[in-house]
């Protein structure tokens, strides 16, 4: 199958910041994004788990966005402005996509 180069940006971020991040992404002209739940985690600020939680104050989500390589820089800049002061992880990896016209 014909595949095309693309970038996969995955941001693990606090749930309270989700809409701010996805707004920033839309702002950077991404064609789409998906939000995945995160159940638990650990890091420099300790361990946490969603079990039994009722608020969004605790807990993270993972936002995944697949984009054309040329849009990467703008996206990273805009996403970073949101995440900057917050805990979380931004990672980027290479991938191949079908239907390149969609990205």
């Amino acid at each position, binding site marked *: 199958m014909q595949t095309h180069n693309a970038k996969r940006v995955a941001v693990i971020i606090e749930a309270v910041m989700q809409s701010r991040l996805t707004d920033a992404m839309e702002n950077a002209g991404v064609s789409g994004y998906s939000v995945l739940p995160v159940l638990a985690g650990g890091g420099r600020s300790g361990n946490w788990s969603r079990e*039994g939680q*009722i*608020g969004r104050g605790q807990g993270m989500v993972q936002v995944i966005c697949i984009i054309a390589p040329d849009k990467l820089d703008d996206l990273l800049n805009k996403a970073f402005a949101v995440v900057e002061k917050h805990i979380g992880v931004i990672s980027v990896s290479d991938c191949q996509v079908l239907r390149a016209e969609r990205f």
Partner: protein
Amino acid sequence: MEGMLALAADNLLSPIILFFALGVLAAFARSDLSIPEAIAKGMSIYLLFAIGFKGGAAVADNGIDATLILSLVAGLVLSFAIPMVAFALLRVMTGLSVVDAAAVAGHYGSISIVTFVAATSVVQGAGLDSEGYMVAVAAVMEAPAILSALWLIARFDKGTAQMDAGLMREILLNGSIVLLVGSFLIGVITGSEGLDLIAPFIVTPFQGVLCLFLLDMGLVAGRGLREARGVLKPGLFLFGVVMPVVGSVFGLLAGVLLGLSPGGIVLFMTLSASASYIAVPAAMRVALPEANPSIYLTLSLGVTFPFNLTLGIPLYLAVASFVTGG
């Protein structure tokens, strides 16, 4: 005094307290007992729905009390003011930074709805009446304290806080406020007829759901305490016990000045004494990411909540009874 001790003992052996204790113990012992997130959220929705509606139906029944508006205003004022007191105390009693102190202070101006619910149970158990609109007072007290916390930062730490229109909307229209106020208004509109219709859902099983919910709160609080032991310095712990008592005095004054019923005074004291652990933490994560969440969550959920649940509420009941000559 004796009566009060008996009351406290009674309270300590009520199922809701014991289930909370079970949760804390299970978490300390690292049991894998846990309530799924969706069920915990479902129970909190149930509780807000139930107490909002019941409060509204009570208002519909008793007619609108002249002091309703004044009580709402008093609630607003207290929610704005208490963080200032808390902030001052924190700066004196603990070594917290301005940012952390302001964040903590915001939690104490706001309220904990489960503490309120538990107080309602105790008030009813003691055979006292209370004003149905106290749930509306609870709702108005949720948000203003957040603004006070941000103002404290702006005043003492120059502009670290990030307040935007989005956050303002999130605070004012956060789910629990909307559900509580909405259910209250629907209760007012549909009155006792509406209540009769859904009482088998919101009245009779209420205490049982509350037990399970407190089990979950015990688990979450216990896990938090286990994770954040290091954070809980003596001064901080002391603050978590002293501040609710200080807050309750403001609630007492308000209640007495407004001429509320003894039960209403207990609830006002409890609202002032309790600290938020849902709405305010979420707002703080957005507006004050630099503030350390384990400090405010541990204090609010791990210290002040159990204190109010076990000793605070009986104390407020005893004081209110004494003051109103009951």
